[in-house]
């Protein structure tokens, strides 16, 4: 059985999206900056896409900037806010400990330039406490940036509350909504969001295209310099087919949020209940305040990469936050931020559902994970030590509520 359950990593482009994109490769291939007919047709399609995307999040078309994806949008939002702040002597930025690296590494680069960065705690449940953001805001705070939903553990943040606080304090507020836009209803006006990042490939759109929404009046700083595309704020000939594909995918995703959530909720319960039966395992992140497609577990005594390679042999595509899979030497910064010790964070597994995943496949995932964890524990000296009491357990034997 083949099960793709890594939709938080990327998704398959839907047939409908591919079909919508094709004419922009072979028929309406003009450069939107060209003045002849095929160029102007491309320009019309570009502006149509802009209007439609704006409408989906409650923004104005002039507030939508097309980018190469979520990382670029995050970079540009943060750098822009930093430059605007610096002009007024504001060089303090607030964020969280478990942001995506597109945010954290941009903040680190600003720190080297002399900005002061405060990363608020995300607590054991992986949810920011708005009053802690409020308490961290200072006279010289230039920006608050908090992700809408975490990419690893799926926890949803109180964005509207944080937005209201930032508005009252007169501080710019950015949210990386890459993992949330297809799972949660977002309205940038109602939720007081000044800037927001989106990436198309997380909701059945193509890779290499995204959106930065920036409220009217916020003057962006260019990250890519060159031509006058995107009102002079993002140079480079527009990826029109990608932009059209993203627009169709986003309309589809947002139209089906409630329907999908209802379906995912049942499968999520099944996964959580099933995996909780594995002794000494625990769900990462709040059970309720999380996107319905995300399940993330830690299992004591095993290492995540071997777990996911053996699951791959069984046809299951999932991911892990172990050091070996993160490509760095440390396990996931997200799991460490919610207080998981290193040795447990190495044994993590993320399952992210897609619309095609069936109940039968979910049962297969639970059965396979249970078997593989038991198999790996069978020759793990770390597990032996836990069983023999030579090392302390982190989790209780049973996490069944």
């Amino acid at each position: 059985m083949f099960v793709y359950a890594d939709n938080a990593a990327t998704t398959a482009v839907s047939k409908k999206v591919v079909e919508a994109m094709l004419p922009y490769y072979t028929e309406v291939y003009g450069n939107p900056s060209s003045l002849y007919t095929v160029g102007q047709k491309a320009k019309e399609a570009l502006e149509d896409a802009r209007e439609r995307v704006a409408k989906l999040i409650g923004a104005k078309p002039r507030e939508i900037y097309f980018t190469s994806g979520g990382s670029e949008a995050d970079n540009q939002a943060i750098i822009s806010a930093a430059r605007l702040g610096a002009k007024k002597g504001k060089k303090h930025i607030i964020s969280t400990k478990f942001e995506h690296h597109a945010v954290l590494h941009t903040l680190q680069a600003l720190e080297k330039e002399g900005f002061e960065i405060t990363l608020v705690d995300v607590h054991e449940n992986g949810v920011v406490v708005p009053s802690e953001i409020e308490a961290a805001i200072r006279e010289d705070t230039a920006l608050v940036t908090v992700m809408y939903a975490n990419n690893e553990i799926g926890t949803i943040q109180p964005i509207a509350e944080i937005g209201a606080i930032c508005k009252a304090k007169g501080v710019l507020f950015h949210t990386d909504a890459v993992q949330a836009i297809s799972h949660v209803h977002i309205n940038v006006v109602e939720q007081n969001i000044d800037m927001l990042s989106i990436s198309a490939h997380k909701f059945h759109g193509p890779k290499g295209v995204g959106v930065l929404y920036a409220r009217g009046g916020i003057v962006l700083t260019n990250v890519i310099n060159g031509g006058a595309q995107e009102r002079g704020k993002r140079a480079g000939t527009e990826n029109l087919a990608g932009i059209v594909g993203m627009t169709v995918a986003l309309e589809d995703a947002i139209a089906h949020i409630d329907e999908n959530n209802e379906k995912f909720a049942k499968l999520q319960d099944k996964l959580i209940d099933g995996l909780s039966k594995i002794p000494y395992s625990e769900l990462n992140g709040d059970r309720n305040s999380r996107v319905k497609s995300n399940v993330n577990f830690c299992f004591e005594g095993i290492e995540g990469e071997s777990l996911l390679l053996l699951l791959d042999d069984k046809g299951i595509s999932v991911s892990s936050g172990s050091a070996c899979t993160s490509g760095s030497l440390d396990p996931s910064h997200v799991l460490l931020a919610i207080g998981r010790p290193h040795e447990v964070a190495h044994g993590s597994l993320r399952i992210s559902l897609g619309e095609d995943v069936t109940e039968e496949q979910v049962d297969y995932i639970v059965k396979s994970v249970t078997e593989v964890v038991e198999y790996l524990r069978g020759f793990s000296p770390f597990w032996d030590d836990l069983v023999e009491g030579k090392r302390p357990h982190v989790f209780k034997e049973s996490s069944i509520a």
Partner: protein
Amino acid sequence: MALYSEKVMDHFRNPRNVGSIENADGVGEVGNPVCGDIMKIYLKINDDQIIEDVKFETFGCGSAIASSSMSTELIKGKPISEALKLTNKAVTEALDGLPPHKLHCSVLAEEAIKSAVKDYYDKNGIEYDPADFPEEHDCEHCCG
């Protein structure tokens, strides 16, 4: 190219000499759960100083399991003197290579075997040159 060679995947999927040996003549354990890998080697050594049997238990990634498996194959039935000459390079080559950030797994395998032999020497009061058993490398290089 895939992450791992066919050889690594074969030893990962079908590890040789998995398990433990009761009343082993030498046992060596290296690594740390904080870093995400622990290797434990059990040796059965006969009067002729030959490694009659060897088993391993490993907590770690695919290449850690494959390196343990391969290194046990390389020393099984061999005299101790030969086992002590096993280098991480030999383990890596026998596996048709490891990705650069996984080379430390083969280092752990070499160290685990040396640690098990040292344990055998210590238990039996056999003298040895401490220079043959360098201190285990610390964990600092691999995790924070």
